[in-house]
């Protein structure tokens, strides 16, 4: 294997064009090889020194999160925790402190796992991936980026340089909740993210829900906005959100859970995420991550 270290984005793009695969934190790629899940590519280019991909920049258009921003940054950055809370909820759950300090947002997204934690949050927040190659940059919707388990539509010479999200509407909130069997070093059994925007009268203006680990990719729950718009958040609405999520899921059975259990629990996660998002939209402060702030995972 040939290993190089890129010092500029241009160098990284050159390497990609010459057939190299990028490695950011390596917490998926290297760990996977060590586990025998895959083997090292012939050429690997380390991108972890590209400081220009490590910042979170806000503008009138929204926020641009560099692909090398780590989970540890995301879970503490004030803009993310305040306005894009679902991402912070997700990043705070990733692995352990070591994993979070090394693992990156770009790596999480480009690894394409259907169980990735930041995927559903990014989707409900309307994120697009900014893919760069020697030929230039394009913005890709996440629904078009993830094509199957571990698969993306990105060409091998495309580097994800950032995730871009529009500004958050007034009176909006988002949250991510996952089902986990232990409180660290866990993988989502199922997960759900919700984004809720309220009208001035407290009724729902807009809402979206996306699900993790219940389909070959992260999926959005279609029709959620229609289902919720104009209603107030009550037991009935939450039950409807849960049913919509369960119906939308096409889970498999594996070592972690049966399809039946996944289908049921993804509904539970969806309504909890929805509830937390709606409460955040009213200005209520719910700690990051929701999994540790309320319910079964709460500290006491």
């Amino acid at each position, binding site marked *: 294997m040939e290993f190089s270290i890129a010092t500029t984005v241009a160098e990284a793009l050159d390497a990609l064009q010459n057939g190299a695969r990028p490695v950011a934190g390596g917490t998926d790629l290297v760990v996977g090889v060590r*586990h025998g899940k895959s083997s090292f590519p012939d050429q690997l280019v380390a991108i972890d020194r590209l400081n220009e991909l490590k910042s979170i920049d806000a503008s009138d258009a929204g926020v641009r999160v560099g692909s090398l921003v780590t989970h540890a940054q995301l879970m503490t950055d004030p803009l993310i925790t305040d306005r894009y809370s679902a991402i912070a909820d997700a990043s705070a759950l990733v692995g*352990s402190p070591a994993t979070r300090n090394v693992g990156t947002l770009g790596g999480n997204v480009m690894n394409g796992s259907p169980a990735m934690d930041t995927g559903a949050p990014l989707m409900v927040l309307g994120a697009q991936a900014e893919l760069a190659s020697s030929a230039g940059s394009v913005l890709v919707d996440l629904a078009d980026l993830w094509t199957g388990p571990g698969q993306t539509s990105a060409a091998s010479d495309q580097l994800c340089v950032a995730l871009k999200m529009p500004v958050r509407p007034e009176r909006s909130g988002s949250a991510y909740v996952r*089902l*986990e*069997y*232990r*409180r*660290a*070093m*866990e*993988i989502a*059994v199922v997960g759900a993210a919700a984004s809720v925007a309220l009208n001035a009268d407290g009724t729902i203006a807009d809402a979206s829900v996306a699900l993790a680990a219940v389909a070959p990719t992260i999926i959005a729950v279609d029709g959620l906005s229609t289902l919720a718009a104009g209603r107030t958040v009550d037991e009935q609405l939450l039950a409807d959100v849960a049913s919509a999520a369960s119906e939308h899921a096409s889970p498999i059975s594996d*070592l*972690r*859970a*049966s399809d039946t*259990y996944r289908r*049921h*629990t993804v509904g*539970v996660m969806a309504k909890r995420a929805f509830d937390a998002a709606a409460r955040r939209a009213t200005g209520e402060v719910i700690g990051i991550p929701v999994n540790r702030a309320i*319910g*079964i*995972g709460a500290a*006491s």
Partner: protein
Amino acid sequence: MTDIAPVPNPALPNPALPNPSAPGATRRFVRADGPDKVTGSGRYAADLQLSGMLHAKFRYADVAHGRITTLDTSAARAMPGVLSVLTHADVPDVRYSPGISDRTLFAKDVVRFEGEVVAAVAATTKEIAQAAVDAIVVEIEPLPVVNDAEEAMAADSPLVHTDWESYEADEAVVRSGNTVSFSSITHGDVEAGLSAADHVITSHHVADASHAAPIEPRAIVAQWEGQKVTVWTSSQVPFDARAGICQTLQLPTNRVRVIVPHLGGGFGGKCGFHFEAQIAALAKAAKRPVKLVFSRREEFLAPDRRREGMTVEITSGVKNDGSITARKARIVIDSGAYASDAAFFPQLAAMHVGGPYKVPNVEIEAHLMYTNHQPSGSVRAPTAPQACWALEAHTDQLADTLGIDPVQFRLQNCVTEGDTGIAGQVYGAIGLKECIEKAVAASDYGAELPDDEAVGVAVSWWPSFPGPSGAHVKIDDDGAGQIITGAQECGTGAVMTLRQLAADEVGLQPEDFEIIYQDTGVAPYDTGATGSQTLINNGRAVVRAARQIADELRKLAADHLEAAPGDIVLADGSAHVAGTPTKNVSIPELAGIAAGGELLAAHGSAPPLDYPTVAATCVGEQGVAGWVAPQFACHAVRVKVDAETGVARVMEISTAHDSGTILNLTGALGQVHGGVLMGIGQALTEVTRYSDEGLQMNAGMLEYKLQTAADAPPITTQFVEPGGEGAGPEGAKGLAEAPNVPTAAAIHNAITKVIGTPVNKLPMTAERIWEVQQ
């Protein structure tokens, strides 16, 4: 009776409880190997590098059951860099295993579980060794897989060992077909007892297999010099490992030296004899040192130590006055493909399903069955956590039927001093009742709790295991002490406490003693880090040796101070005349005098302790129905259950233990915390899953879910010290296994209180807790 003030988990102080007791009889000191381990300066077996060292890899069966039709190593042998390749044909044709000699070093004709070693290679690099292993041609004709212990009992079940009758075995082991070992305990008249009952209740419980999962995957290095071999190995039992090498390679004990560098945990998984002989044989054939380091996956699949799966059916008769009239039970245990050390499991499981209760009429039978799974063997308190989980779930059901509070029911029925236990043993001063009272009092039992929370309570017991054990103690010319012991440290800290025992005898501090240990070449025999036995056996040996040194010191001091030896007091680093502390001489000075004459060197050996008699009729007697210095415990666990998902979380645990006198509180608390965490894992997340083909599906840390530090609840610990019946020095009993026994049971009882329905499968995974509510 003295007891120690409740000690909250230091990481999570519990302000409601008083602080740890002031220094008194019980001390707290940091283990001597701690700094090495936490700073990284400690060296483990995998760290060893010897000149010319080769790397070993194994070829495994990879199928659960089959007959080897082709085994061709020629391509592997021809590969450059390969220096030795071994199969069964290349080593003595010896069957081994304690109790029943049913195993060979390499598969002989038939493979009986996926992790069975078929061939081994030593090569100049790991990569070449792996390539050579892959180049070995192994063809296996499939045989029917026995994938379940209950199925193994069926009359028409295929036999795992068709030649079982020809195996050498201890006469006491009752065997037949797939039954590796059968035991029953019968006491009183169970049918009469059931007839006399007001209620007869039956319950059924199924526990899945789990793993010891030590963090260090095992490593072995073997090097020959002439006719002698030295083996460095991550073993909990170096003398057992030596015996295994000697038996299988047909060597006298004095030609084999086994050394254990720092051990990265064992939990029973590194008891017994594992792979040392294959590596020694490879090294001999290659004429070079050879090293084996397991991958995590191999650590899950290959050792013959896994926590056994078990099914339990219990029937009890109870009277409206709350007394238990009779107990009948049937236990089926999955032994896996070989007996390992498990021949005594049926009798031990029977004791735990009987439990520490007054039950006048008992009839319990237990069957240990061959299957095509990885062999089961002693993992921390073998059989007990599962059996206790079943019994204590059943006990709550009994109390519920009678409408009696489950704690009251236990207090009414538990054994206390003078009571007769299920096998007819009469107990002396024991602290079970106090354990229940203290653990419950320090918990939220009976307090107002949210609907999704409840406190569950369970009691348990565990024997102390007397055994032969020896140690040398010496003090060199500068007054520095050394203990040279056969005892093995597997992380419990028991060996570290030996320093305190020696120091107390000779008037020095624990820190004045260094310990040379885990080397069969320098120290006398000890059973090893198994059966919570180190302190009670090796502790007595060390005390015996240290007493001889103390006598020598008194004689020297008497000469020096012109007093009678009987008047010399050894304390605080010096010898003084009783009543006249100013008339003194330092121990280093006395050691200097001794160094020019008769040396301060002594040997101590712990004499056997007598086993109590039992009145019960025991078929398949394995020596574990009458218990020396039994330990007792009660755990009260507050659990929160998320009914919608079935996720259960342990919020808080209150524990009380009678493990006799506590010599080092720091070490003792560490054992309780570790045992509790392991118990939570077994209760909720740890499970080995088998495919229909009898293969493990989650042989890795990703899908085998251990508990993490983030899952650890606050743990409150109280020790009850009834005195009198202790087997070890100063009345100490064992402690390493007992805390692992009642945790899962208490968690079960809490979950049942919250959701109203018992979960009769272990582990009680979120999905299972959710399922029983549907």
